[in-house]
């Protein structure tokens, strides 16, 4: 049988909380389907040529206002508002009319909407976040910490479980797994009032009940009222480490793990 582990923050309940948190960041403004990448790129080129001098090459403003945060852009649908401004200009604010074709205006609008979307999506670290931005530590110092003060070598080996670990994960994932590995089943020993001991893999634990998969693979559960529960969590050392790692130690350790290719 399969035992599903639900003990931690990535369990059923924790995941709900994470999704809720994520929703806070990623769902607030409904935006239309994104146009193809080449349209946005064409719009970017046209924007730089025609608008960049005042609004900045990336539309974040200069002499003219920031258009990523623009109310008008937020309300624009199919370049109806942006087009009007481009064609008529804003003489009162020193913006001349620009003789652009309908297609060029549409490309610029696509680019501006893409920039607004980028700001909306900026609350998400991309999965392909480059290694070069993460790799600021000293691998030698990381190795020393691994074998020394960090106590990592007590459970891990660069030629054993961590051999080629840098090949197994994208850089961002490697850093996350280093700090908080995926769940390893905790083992638990339940001692019943008569002295009988039941050992197994932890399935559920709260203040009142304990559930485990025993050696035969069957699920068993007990009230904690009369049972002694001894959980051996292989991640306990990681949780403890989070309390004492300095920023340098995080980055040095990461730099060391990156060498384990």
């Amino acid at each position, binding site marked *: 049988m399969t035992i599903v582990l639900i*003990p*931690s923050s990535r369990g059923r309940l924790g995941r709900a909380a994470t999704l809720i948190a994520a929703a806070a960041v990623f769902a607030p403004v409904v935006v239309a389907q994104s146009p193809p990448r080449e349209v946005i790129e064409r719009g970017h080129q046209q924007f730089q040529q025609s608008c960049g001098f005042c609004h900045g090459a990336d539309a974040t*403003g200069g002499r003219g206002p920031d258009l990523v945060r623009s*109310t008008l852009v937020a309300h624009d649908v199919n370049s109806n508002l942006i087009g009007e401004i481009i064609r008529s200009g804003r003489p009162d604010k020193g913006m001349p009319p620009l003789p652009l074709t309908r297609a060029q205006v549409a490309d610029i609008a696509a680019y501006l909407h893409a920039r607004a979307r980028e700001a909306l999506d900026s609350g998400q670290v991309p999965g392909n976040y480059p290694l070069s931005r993460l790799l600021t530590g000293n691998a030698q110092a990381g190795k020393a910490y691994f074998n020394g003060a960090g106590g990592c070598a007590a459970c891990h080996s660069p030629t054993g479980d961590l051999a080629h670990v840098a090949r197994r994960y994208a850089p961002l994932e490697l850093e996350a797994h280093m*700090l908080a590995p995926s769940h390893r089943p905790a083992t638990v020993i339940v001692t019943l009032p008569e002295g009988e001991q039941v050992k197994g893999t932890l399935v559920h634990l709260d*203040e009142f009940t304990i559930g485990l998969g025993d050696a035969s693979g069957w699920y068993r559960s007990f009230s904690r009222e009369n049972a002694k529960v001894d959980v051996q969590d292989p991640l306990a050392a990681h949780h403890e480490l989070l309390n004492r790692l300095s920023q340098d130690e995080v980055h040095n350790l990461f730099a060391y793990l990156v060498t384990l290719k």
Partner: protein
Amino acid sequence: MRNRIAVLILGVRQSRLCRLLCGKAQPFPPGGQQQKKNIAFSFGWFPESRRVSAQQAAKPRHPSRTVGPRFFHTFLALVSFGAVAPGLLVAQGLTPEKLLQPSPDTWPTYNGDYSGRRFSTLDQINSGNVSSLTLAWAFHARTASIKSTPLEVNGILYLTTPDNVWAIDARFGHEIWHYRRVSQGDHIGHRGVGMYGDWLYFTTPDAHLVSLNAKDGSKRWEIELADPKLGYFSTMSPLVVRNHVLVGVSGDVTDIPGFLDSVEPETGKVQWRWYTEPRPGEPGSETWPKNSDAIRHGGGMTWMTGTYDPKLNLVYWGTGNPNPVLAGQARPGDNLYTCSIVALNADTGKLEWHFQPSPHDVHDWDAVETPVLFDAEFDGKPRNLLAQASRNGFFFVLDRTNGQHLVTTPFIDQTWASGVDERGRPVRKPEYDPRPDGALVEPASDGATNWMSPSFSPATGLFYVNARRTFSIFYLTSTGKAEGWAGRDRDLWVNSTIRALDYRTGKVVWSHEIGDGEGGAGIMTTAGHLLFTGDTQGNLLALNPSTGETLWHLNAGAQMLNCPMTYELDGRQYVLMAADDTLYAFALPASRGE
């Protein structure tokens, strides 16, 4: 179907009763307005099971002419003695005066009263009998997790999820009406409605404020608080103070200014608006960069319900994080009045004082957690206090008359502050700011606590908070001009507790483990010497508020994500807690024959 059967039986009973006793004072003239749904409508008029069916009920011609259950009892008694003429029926409803001292048969504001203490004087359910607590009824919202606190007025509960309001029979749990208004925008959660007279005030995912008739859920008016296309939305439960409906906004994904509106209860006209950011040149503007548009895009949302001191006529409100969220380099300075507790004149919105728990926040640590008001001894003197357990992991106590700082103490482990400055504000360690290669920080952006209600018990003198150990790594990802979040933190490990703090020092008196994962339940304490809350594993809990010992629990099957509330009707105390999308009402077992 269940509702309709009950309605038919009770409706007939009611109708006959009303005709017999009320005579020409019958409040529902024939030929009334069309009803929205073929369900029961329960009015403040009718106590307990006395209800009318939709077919029989119609809106009264004069909405203000309603009376509460107690009056009706009295009325029935007097009529049966032939002592009162029916014409004596007078206007009632939830007047602002009643909000000053809510009676224990009501829970008329988000926090139950203006103090935000979430302490109830009810003690029928108490530490001696809580072990026999039983389910009175359950209500399934079936739309989204319930994160709101229902109001309870005249035997009717008003419950919300995003886009939805229900009126529910507070005794039996039956749906009375359901208002649904689907809109675009953020549906992260909803905290509840506000009430004034016979009217409800409901905020929406597209940043509108809707006023509903509490009797039948029909819409009276609707206003747009802010432009949803810019990223505004609203989830909070409006606070009614005097003739002001105070309503705040959410939305930190885009760089927009926060504000608090005071709205006229009858018309929806905005009476005053307080912006979180000062105008350039005003006091506080010096905490923003000059020659930049940062101050106009500085965030500081007002997304939780504040508190009110009627004697000082001051409203206390917490404000959210500055924008861009993680990119402090875009906005050097303290960034007032973001991540602040502000005291505003209730009638004018004028800022009287402020205190900033997180100056120049770069971790999304909104200081919106309830500013709890209580009067207690401090350093040997009686003081008017305000306490907040803030999302950044620190507990603050202020003198609420003038904002004078009294206590700053971490209520849980934190790694980001090196100490406290002379004004009582935590001092940030720069290396714990978000950075491109990641900064490991406790607490995470979700915070050491969050919107889940704290509680202060005058009986124990302790302040209670849902306190989480949350670690995450903060990445600053923006290159160029930072806009929006400009990065994000990644959760590593979370484990939660309920903690009792000594308000005089902030020291932890006891800590009760509630499991791995993020605690999401609010706290309520009662004169029955009980603390109600929930753990991370789906258990609802009643604890001893002096020791943290568990006195009662129930596996509700899903995590509690709202805040407990209580009321007493017909001599029976109910405690309400929600697990995911189900609202549960608990009470002591009803004796046989009742």
